[in-house]
C-alpha cells in the first residue's frame, strides 16, 4: 500500500507548510515527519509521497534524503544509539564507550541488533563537549559517562516494553 499520513500527521503537515513562503522549504521537516511515520526509514514510497505533495521531483527529494545523515534509507532498529566520537569526547574516553556498546550489543557500528531493537552509530560532535563523553539514545542525551553507565543504559533500553 502506498505511504500516507494519518489525520494527526496531516494536521502537522499543514502546520509545517504554513511556516514557509513556498512548499519546497517544507521538504526537510516533512521528511522528518514521514520518516517517523514510516518506522524510522525513508523508502521509495515516502519519496514519491513527499515529491507529489510538495510539487518537487522525486530526484530532488532523493537528493535531499541522501545528503543528510539523519535520514535513513535502510531499515533501522526501534532505538538508535549514537556515540559521539569527535575530539572532545575522544579525549575523555569515547572509545571505551563505543567498545562497551559493541560488546554489550554484540554488533559493530552501523549494525542493528538481531532482535531489531537497537541500531548503533557513531556521531560527529553533538555539542556536548563540556560534559564529555556522551551518547545520544533516540532523542535523549546521556552525558559525563563511564562504560558502566552505558551498560546500565543499554539494559534499561532492552527492558523497555516496546515490542
Amino acid at each position, binding site marked *: 500500500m502506498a505511504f500516507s499520513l494519518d489525520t494527526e500527521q496531516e494536521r502537522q503537515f499543514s502546520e509545517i507548510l504554513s511556516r514557509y513562503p513556498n512548499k519546497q522549504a517544507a521538504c526537510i521537516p516533512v521528511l522528518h515527519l514521514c520518516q517517523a511515520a514510516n518506522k524510522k526509514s525513508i523508502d521509495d514510497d515516502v519519496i514519491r509521497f513527499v515529491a507529489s505533495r510538495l510539487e518537487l521531483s522525486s530526484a530532488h527529494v532523493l537528493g535531499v534524503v541522501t545528503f543528510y545523515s*539523519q535520514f535513513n534509507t535502510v531499515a533501522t532498529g526501534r532505538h538508535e544509539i549514537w556515540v559521539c566520537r569527535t575530539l572532545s569526547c575522544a579525549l575523555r574516553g569515547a572509545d571505551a564507550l563505543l567498545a562497551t556498546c559493541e560488546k554489550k550489543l554484540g554488533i559493530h557500528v552501523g549494525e542493528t541488533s538481531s532482535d531489531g531493537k537497537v541500531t548503533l552509530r557513531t556521531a560527529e560532535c553533538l555539542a556536548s563537549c563540556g560534559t564529555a563523553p556522551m551518547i545520544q539514545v533516540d532523542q535523549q542525551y546521556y552525558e559525563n559517562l563511564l562504560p558502566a553507565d552505558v551498560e546500565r543504559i543499554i539494559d534499561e533500553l532492552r527492558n523497555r516494553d516496546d515490542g
Partner: protein
Amino acid sequence: MARLTNYITKNYGKERSFDLDVYESDGGYGAARKALAMSREAVIGEVKAAHIRGRGGAGFDCGMKWSFMPKESAKPHYLVVNADEGEPGTFKDRTIMEQNPHLLIEGCIIGAYAIGARDVYIYVRHELHLAKARLWAAIEQATKRGYLGERAMGHPYPIRVYVHTGAGAYICGEETALLESLEGKRGEPRLKPPFPAQAGAFGCPTSVNNVETISAVALAIEMGGDAFSQLSSLHGFNDGGVRLFGVSGHVKRPGVYEAAVGLTLRELIYELGGGILGDRALLGVIPGGSSCPILLPNETVDVPNDPRFAAWQGKNVLDLPMGVDTFRGVGTMLGTCCAIVLSDAADPVVACRNLMQFYKHESCGQCTPCREGCGWLDRILDKIVNGKASMAELNLVSEVASNISGNTICAFGDGAAGPMLAFVQKFRKSFEDYILTGGQNQTRRLVP
C-alpha cells in the same frame, strides 16, 4: 584574575529558567520594548556601538552586517538565526537555547525590527531535541503574551518566529548552505556574491546571525551599545561586550563560562577550567573549535608592526586576550571561543587524525579540492598512525592541505587545511616518529 559575568547566564541553573515568568521577573523583554520604540536606524546604531563580533566563528561585526540590509525593498526581509551548533569543541549556543531561550527570542524581535524582517527562522540542528522543544515553547509563550504575532510588543509591526530543523550536516552551519537547507535543498554552500543581504533566503534580503550574537543584541540594547562594548577589555579592537567561553578536553572543570571579551587562554584553562587533568603539562590548545589551528604553550606573540599588540609583543600566547583580531594576529582564530585542551597524555597525531576523520565525513562534496582532499588527508593519516606511511607521504599531507586552501566555495576547506598544516608543522617530530618507528615514542592514545 578571571572575572565571570552573568548577563547571558544569570538564570542558568534556576528552576524553570526557560520559563517566560522567570525571564520577565528580572526585566526580560525590556530591551525589545525599548527597541521597538526607537527607529530602525537607531537600533542598528546601538548594535554597531556595541561592537558585537559574530559569535558563530567568523567574527564579523553584527551591526555592520545589519547595515548592509536594504532600507526598503519590494521583497520581504528575513532574519535567520544560525543554531546549527556542531563545530567540534563547541557547546555554548545549546546552553542559551535550553536554559535561556527567551533571551534569544527577545534578540530575534529586536533583530527582525532592525533589519525590516517579519519572519524569523531559527535553524536548529536536528539532534538538539531539547533545544527545539524549549524554543517552540518559548515562542508559544511569547506569542500568547503578545510579544510575537501581528502586533509585536503591542506595536503595529508583525513578527513571527519559527524553528526550522536540519537533518545532520555540519556544513549547514555555513550561512549559505544553511539557506539552501532552509529552502528545502541539499546543504551545499552558494557562491558569493550575491551576499545574503542582497539575495538570501528565498531570494530575499536576509541576515544570518549566530544564536549568541542575537542574544547579545538584547543585552546591548538594554544597557546601551557603548556601555556593552566597554565591558570588554578589547573595546579598542572593536570587539565588545561579554561572551560565552567553553573549555573541554583535558581540564578539571570543563564547561561554559561567561566573561568579558578579553579573557586569556591561561585564565580559561587554569582558572575557570581548573587546570589540566592530573596536573599534567599542556600539550596544546585548539582555541575556538576544531577549525582553528592549534597553539602550543611555548608560542609567543610576534606582531611587531601593529602598535595595538605592543603590550603583548614577545609574551606567551596564553596571556594574549582572546579576541577576533588578536587571535587572527597570531596565526590562529578565535572561532567559537570554545577551547579544546590537550594534555601531554594526548598523542597529537591521533588527535589530528580524529579531526580529519570529522572533515572527511562532513565535506559536502561540492568542490573537488575539499571532497577529495579531505579524503586523502584521512587516508594518509590512517597509514601514518598504523606505521605504514613514508616520509614522502608526510610531505603529501602538506601538499594536499595546501591545495584545498583557497580553492573552495566556502571556508570549510580552509577549516580542514589550516589545522592539518598546523599539526604537521608544530608536531612534525611526532609524525616522523610514526613513520620511522611506528610511533614507539608516542602515547598513541588520547585518554590520560
